[in-house]
């Protein structure tokens, strides 16, 4: 039989299997118990074995039901993907020693995510995903400490770079409009408890 590989299905199957194997490994810590008195590890073990089996099945079928190749990655895509991971991890480790604020709660995670996604945004293939994710990560970092207005303005302005047809005037307009709208909805009407301005 002629092989007719479906790249998308094969990748999906491998992802399912990888997650299942990681889950089975982590589940070694939990006691299985018996079928009558199931321990905390019983259901996870069952679920992950089924998932691994389904993943293998998907991989098996993917050899025949193609062709549906994965989208091609350019050299820059691969470079920025790996670079983003390295830069993100580095920022995550180093940030707390640069400024104590980054060491508090999950701020280092936010710094790492933002740095990593900005590196990925260099290549056109990742641009939309990376800029949107970076803007949301920056929002997480800034919203609590830099306050409602600065956090939201950063989110809106950074996210606007994901769409090439935005003009300067348009960005200023949409930022002003959304700040006013969200102030009215969330602060005036719903009264959520957040700082409006920077608190350090």
């Amino acid at each position: 039989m002629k092989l007719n590989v479906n790249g998308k299905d094969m990748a999906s199957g491998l992802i399912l299997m990888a997650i299942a194997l990681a889950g089975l490994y982590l589940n070694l810590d939990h006691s299985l118990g018996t079928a009558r008195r199931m321990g905390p590890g019983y259901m996870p073990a069952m679920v992950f074995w089924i998932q691994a089996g389904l993943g293998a099945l998907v991989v098996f079928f993917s050899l025949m039901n193609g062709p549906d190749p994965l989208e091609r990655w350019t050299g820059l895509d691969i470079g920025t993907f790996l670079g983003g991971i390295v830069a993100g991890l580095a920022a995550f480790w180093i940030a707390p020693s640069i400024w104590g604020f980054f060491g508090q709660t999950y701020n280092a995670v936010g710094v790492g995510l933002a740095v990593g996604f900005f590196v990925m945004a260099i290549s056109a293939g990742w641009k939309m995903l990376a800029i949107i994710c970076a803007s949301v990560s920056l929002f997480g970092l800034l919203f609590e400490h830099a306050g409602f207005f600065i956090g939201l303005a950063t989110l809106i302005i950074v996210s606007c770079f994901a769409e090439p047809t935005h003009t300067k005037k348009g960005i200023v307009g949409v930022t002003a409009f959304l700040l006013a709208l969200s102030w009215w909805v969330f602060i005036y009407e719903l009264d959520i408890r957040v700082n409006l301005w920077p608190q350090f």
Partner: protein
Amino acid sequence: MDLLISNLGHGFGVALSFQNLAFALLGALIGTAIGVLPGIGPVATISLLLPITFGLPATTAIIMLAGIYYGAQYGGSTTAILLNLPGEVSSVVTTLEGYKMARNGRAGAALATAALGSFFAGTVATILVAASGPVLTQVALSFGPADYFSLMLLGLIIACVLAQGSIVKAIGMVVLGVALGLVGTDVQTGQQRFTFGIPELSDGLGFVPIAMGMFGIAEIVLNLERPESRSILSTKVGQLWLTKEEFKRSTPAVLRGTLVGSFLGLLPGGGASLAAFGSYMMERKMSKGRAMFGNGAIEGVAGPEAANNAAAQTSFIPLLTLGIPSNAVMALMVGALIIQGIQPGPRMVEAQPDLFWGLIASMWIGNVMLLVINLPMIGMWVKLLSVPYRFLYPSILVFCCIGVYSLNNNAFDVYMTVLFTVFGYICSKLKMEPAPLLIGFVLGPMMEEHLRRAMLLSRGDWSVFVQRPISATMLGIALIALLLMAMPNIRKGKEKAMAE
């Protein structure tokens, strides 16, 4: 019958309170708006409004969210007919005949049929929900844990069989969803599972970050990658009424559509879009005007529009009576109820009569509102389309982010949303359906609980699942559904139906 009327009376009493009316209207308005706008659907909208419903009473919150779902079915038809642009998946088939009708100068008639057909179907479906709810609830109360487990398994399998694309992949996504639901403290032993020592995970992964990341923000990224193509409105709406002949032709189509839609809405994995497709196929084969199909047959608008609205409402039946969500929107409703501290299930009718009957009454009230919102105000909704996506998506992001953050006032949830955005993006690139994952995630913890209880009662004997008649029937149906799909002929038929 008397009881039904008095219960419905109670429901109308609840639904007609000022606050509930106001939020039903708000839901209907938001629903119509997102129905008109392509690129944002009810799943994304409901997930980004979930955190906001936190501050509302449970009944009001659910009434509003339900309004969004069926409102979107009305709104979706408008752009489908006028611009050949389906605002929702469920109105894809409406473009086939509806846009042709608009080109023939019968846009007004098409819009009127769509709205009137939807209204009729909505009314019938509301009565159906009210009548079948308490009966099914009685049946559900006799279920043991083993029956529940099998029922949920059946729900998951049928949801996969009806999902688009490969079934094995869809089941894989369901199981992954169940696996994600395992994260957190084990209810019976108190042991932390898969939490990596992160205190925020001890209550489990958040429902909102997953839904918002995979359906809200990942959707934005995918829309941005597809360049925008919107034609400018050139068709005149014309007069919003039907000729006698059109009325005569659309009546049986509406009746058939209501029937098909009500049934398909009940099935797990069904819901509005499947109903619309089903009804379209039926009309093309059965209606008197089938020769006109492809050239603007009014039956092709009336049937599917009635069907999608009927299904949007009957899909509440499994949720309200059994606590089982049949599609992604219903999974979000479970999320909303759990945020409110209500466990959906057969006890809801007894424990939360206000919510149960109030919601049903509000569905009918919402349909009346939608008729008014849609027909005379159609021009206003079409203008909404002139807002370009580049102004729309920052607004969606703002609501998503504030919503996620304010859940626990913790940036951790925001970072989880980012992770699930990336995961949702990968899934759609690999053609893995995110909806089964969400249903699995919601049902997973309940399934584990029922499984453990069933096995404890049976003293570790697995045969309990085939010995109890209800449970055995459920498993049997699930097995048949799977086997049917394994047969090449039927699978090809399904693929063909999905492709059309």
